[in-house]
């Protein structure tokens, strides 16, 4: 699934990395526990999280994940957005709660 589709399906906005919205993800992992993300993710995975700390960037950076979908309408702090920009990571943000965002994407074929 292209990130542009993720935007459309979840009504999200692109906070960082609009130029990269053509990237494809084949899986998603929804969690606020970064160690669980570290334990279980595959490379071409979209991270769905309600956290907006620098650690979400570091976590996906370690795992080579291309993008993060921030849920629950959280504002992404400037320093976190800057870190994403310098590390080449896309951040999308939606007002949906994690359950709803996950459900919408799953229903449209983005597997776990």
């Amino acid at each position, binding site marked *: 699934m292209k990130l542009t589709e993720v935007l459309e399906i979840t009504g999200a906005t692109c906070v960082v990395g609009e130029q990269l919205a053509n990237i494809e993800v084949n899986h998603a992992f929804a969690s606020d526990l*970064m160690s669980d993300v570290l334990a279980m993710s595959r490379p071409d995975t979209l991270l769905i999280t309600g956290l907006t700390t620098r*650690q979400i960037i570091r976590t996906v950076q370690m795992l080579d994940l291309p993008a993060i979908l921030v849920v629950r309408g959280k504002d992404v702090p400037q320093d976190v957005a800057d870190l994403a920009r310098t590390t080449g990571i896309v951040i999308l943000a939606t007002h949906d709660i994690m359950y709803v965002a996950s459900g919408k994407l799953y229903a449209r074929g983005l597997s776990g």
Partner: protein
Amino acid sequence: MSLEQSVEALRYLGLFSNLDASSVMSTAVHALHPENRVAAARILMREKSISGVPIVDADFRLVGLISVSKIIEALADGRLADSVDSVMTREVISVHAHDTFETILSCFQRFKFGCFPVIEEDGKLVGMITDTDVLSAIIRSFYSVYVHDRQRTITLGSFSALSKEFENSADFVHDISCTGLENAGEGSARLKAFLQSKGFGESVVRRASVCAYEAEMNVCIHAGGQGSLRAIARNGEIIVRVEDEGPGIENIDLAMKEGWSTATDAIRELGFGAGMGLANIRRFSDHLVIISGKDKPTKVEMIILESKE
């Protein structure tokens, strides 16, 4: 740590794969024949400080064993002048030369004897295994793994569970210095870039990065954010060492358990402290050594092998 846990830990390190009974046993065997007297067995045990004497026939095939307790019985019954044949145990628990190290350990656990004869297919006695032999084999296996698999120049007397190379230099050095979790992960991000520049494959770099990141997070969460992250990356292996000055891990067994953590709620709110850090490191590394203790520095060394991809 129980014996089982110790054995499990050693098995995890892959140290036993090359060991069989023939490589563990002592080959300098002191045996007697059935027609020898019990007194001879007693003298042999005393002089050679052994707890059991194997009894063999003319072709050196194992036919029995005489243990200390049999000698004590014979002493009490005044049978020291009798033949060994009349007092020896005939149902001897023995191991085969090609039996695995784990089989040997299970013999010690099950039968509680001090020694076991080692025989070949034809029943001929080729050696004896005592608990001292087992201990020596475990120590030797550390050397063999490090020397043969790691191409290291570790010699007897300077052996350490941790890599010696870090004493002189490292290919990558990062001082961890965090207040809060703000900069946590910076070192691992730098390490990742370094490993990529060295031409390591995507997957091995990812595994090394996750290991380094979890260890770096632990320094930031538990050790006041002060420590070091170093790495040696060459010949298809990445050795990552993360150290801090404490307060140390009181119970490493507990800390290794998934879901166990001493992190505060504030840390948990940041997505960490769920008790997955060390478990994750174990999951992604090929070798893991942790040295710590209550109020002690912590050293975590992780080896990630490209060949395990």
